[in-house]
């Protein structure tokens, strides 16, 4: 969208609402377009194209933070939030198939509840996303710490139906656990942050609910030392389900867990405790809560930066970060992926430029600023590997109706 609208955001939202019949709702204090069906969404998109009004898909708005258009906008360029929370509901879940298909606005917690009776769980543990929507979780490309066992969530997206900004309704993939028919465009939409299309429905592979879960928590001196220990445990026990380091209020904990066959979990936990040494706390009945607590700590709610480092360099990187960061800065490290989330320093979004960013260049990648306007930190973000992203964005959204979303990350959840 190259021509900024002369109208105020409120006027634009009202205009789109009146033209399309789409209701205006309120999500986290934002006036938001809430289409009730695909036809209404198509009407909104059509009017947005005509009016040169950019749209910002926000799901339930849980990831907006400093991307809120009303808090931190660019002069003359304010995208109108749009949410699919009215398009909610499970479309198909057949016990024995191991898959679920639901509309994009379905709350994540509803999916959890729907699959539990058949002894299944979702392919990513995102308890902090329970109020988030399916479309938002997928659009923002999130994964849980249990990716160590199951892989990232994007690997378990089987198919999608989306609407392009020109109103084209299109599907890719399917609802089967194995399928290579056509291009995997759903992989492209997952994590695209709403810049290519608006997700209407998606199918996910499900995992078996484990017979037993067990977790541990071990205090360590600092993250650098904790990561060395984590690598040792990972090497000794390939069946770990999750392994994270958390630094909250200067207290550093190495936490991890197992899930699976009860007898195997029992045997493996002894091996882990022997490898860990020290005096770890061990959790059985509370393992699930422990896992959720640890996951919650990494829910991105309080973090501004997402760094990824090769595992063999991660301990050194953490040591340097700890030396530079104030003791009050929180850290969360997924030890299986080398992913480090760095907390906020202060509450002013304009001041979140990290002083340490230059020092990690060449050894780790600053994947993205979370919940902060990406364009403020464009020089710190990794450069696009090619022109492919631009070509794909222009190919699927030539009018740039959704392209506005590219300037703000982490929004669609």
């Amino acid at each position: 969208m190259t021509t900024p609208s002369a109208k105020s955001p409120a006027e634009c939202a009202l205009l789109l609402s009146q033209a399309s019949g789409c209701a205006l709702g309120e999500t986290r204090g934002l006036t938001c377009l809430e289409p009730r069906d695909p036809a209404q969404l198509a009407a909104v998109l059509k009017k947005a194209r005509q009016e040169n009004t950019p749209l910002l898909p926000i799901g339930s708005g849980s990831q907006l933070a400093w991307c809120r258009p009303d808090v931190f906008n660019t002069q003359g360029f304010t995208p109108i939030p749009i949410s699919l929370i009215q398009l909610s509901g499970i479309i198909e879940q057949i016990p024995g198939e191991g898959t679920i298909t639901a509309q994009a606005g379905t709350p994540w917690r509803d999916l959890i509840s729907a699959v539990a009776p058949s002894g299944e769980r979702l392919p990513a543990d995102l308890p902090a996303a329970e109020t988030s929507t399916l479309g938002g979780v997928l659009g923002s490309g999130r994964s849980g710490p249990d990716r160590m066992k199951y892989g990232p969530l994007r690997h378990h997206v089987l198919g999608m139906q989306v609407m392009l900004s020109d109103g084209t309704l299109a599907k890719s993939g399917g609802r089967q656990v194995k399928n290579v028919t056509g291009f995997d465009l759903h992989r492209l939409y997952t994590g695209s942050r709403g810049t290519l299309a608006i997700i209407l429905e998606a199918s996910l592979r499900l995992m078996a609910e484990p017979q037993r879960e067990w977790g541990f928590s071990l205090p360590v001196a600092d993250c650098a030392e904790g990561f060395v220990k984590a690598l040792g445990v990972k090497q000794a026990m390939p069946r770990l389900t999750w392994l994270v380091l958390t630094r909250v209020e200067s207290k550093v904990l190495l936490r991890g867990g197992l899930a699976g066959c009860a007898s195997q979990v029992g045997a493996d936990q002894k091996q882990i405790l022997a490898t860990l040494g020290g005096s770890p706390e061990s959790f059985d009945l509370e393992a699930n809560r422990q896992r959720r607590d640890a996951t919650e700590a990494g829910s991105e709610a309080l973090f501004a930066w997402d760094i990824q480092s090769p595992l063999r360099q991660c301990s050194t990187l953490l040591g340097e970060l700890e030396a530079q960061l104030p003791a009050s800065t929180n850290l969360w490290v997924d030890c299986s992926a080398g992913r480090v989330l760095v907390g906020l320093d202060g509450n002013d979004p304009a001041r979140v430029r990290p002083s340490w960013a230059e020092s990690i260049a060449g050894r780790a990648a600053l994947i993205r600023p979370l919940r902060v306007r990406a364009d403020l930190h464009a020089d710190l973000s990794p450069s696009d590997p090619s022109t492919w992203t631009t070509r794909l964005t222009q190919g699927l959204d030539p009018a740039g109706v959704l392209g506005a979303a590219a300037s703000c990350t982490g929004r669609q959840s």
Partner: protein
Amino acid sequence: MTEAWIDELRNIVGPRNVITGSDSLAWESDGFSLVRGQGMAIVLPLDTSETVRVMQLLAEEGVPLVPRGAGTGLTGGASPVQGGVTIGTARMRKIFSIDPIERTAHVQAGVVNSDLSLAAKPHGLFYAPDPSSQAACTLGGNVANNSGGPHCFMHGATTRHVRGLKLVDAQGEVLDLLSSHADPAGLDLVGLINGSEGMFGVVTEINFRLEVLPEEVQTVIAVFSSLDAACDCVSEAIAAHIGASAIEILDKLTITAVEDSVFAAGYPRGAEAVLLVEAEGGALEVQETIDLVLQLANKHEAIETRRASDGAERARLWAGRKGAFGAMGRVAPDLYVADVVAPRTRLREIVHLAVEIAAERNLRLGNVFHAGDGNLHPNIAYDRRDEDEVRRVLEAGRLIMEACIERGGSLTGEHGVGLEKMTHMCDLFDDADLSVMHRVRDALDPKRRMNPTKVLPLRACREVRNAGMPLSPMENPEGKL
């Protein structure tokens, strides 16, 4: 293309690595031998750098480009039906590095699938996707087709094992996505390229995720007096969330063909079906899984169950399974390998239908399939010199596909669309779905030079369904759509 261009290509890759004329006959088709085509040349670059120079040169010529691994594909995806130049990865055989900390391997695209697991073994690692052709097929070809294999039941198909890759597009530009990061920084282009069947460029290097060699592996064989019972046993095992790594079924014709061949595995010849289940992991969880398999097999009246006594017997059982396609050569000179996906709760119904469809057409059907994933391979033995038999084979293949789709299944589970199923894309997708795939393709290859006339129908579905025009290159071998 003139002789001058051929000379230019020879200058880049060396004279022996540009193949033309009668020497190029072996590249006329892949494993889907019903369709053949002859290109101008086959070029075998050594690495990314040579591939870039070749692609840049060919961009000036504007010729069609066909990427090719080992040519073991089964849908005609590597057949040069539009002519042009085939870019083969046969010389790209280097395993650059294996990183035991990251559990990754950086390889060239022409490395043979099974060679990677051999190289990873000293590090206590292995590469999980194991297509039946793993002793010959290349990893680049696996990426192009998002290949599967028996153990993908537990580990997932190729796309779940690719951390990054390097690709040369039709213009000779390099897309370097060989990042060591677990998540993409922007769009998941790696996910898009996996399974794109060579439509976006030539993959030259790949960074694969490796798995830790399991502490314990056990394989069990259950013999059934009916194919239905074997299918029902699998459906119940899936509903019980069985923790197996592979669940395979072979039927009577396949068992007989295997036992008559060099792949003889000790499958009981009189059996109507054999169920082969493997479990891997910790000793206790493996034991529990195997106990469950035996319990379910007995419930479904298996006439015999036994565990592989050692690694040698296990290897023999798997050699039989993976050699099944080759063994079918004893039944007839040609083999049509279908690849469809059935809902896992309707396995028995669809296998039954496939048997009926083949019987009605007097065809010899062997079923060997990844039952755990619902991925069926009804294999029809035939003689391509018999025109009527070829017609019946293609008809049966189409009807089996349609039956799967009608019941909520899919067109292909691991072989891809290629030429064989291109027009059948309209059975699963509508014009709008396909138009978006075309838009993605056009964004990345606007001149449509990469692997033309594959995967995506070039006409609207209504026209494709019009019986008055050629439906696919299979029915129009010159490829003039």
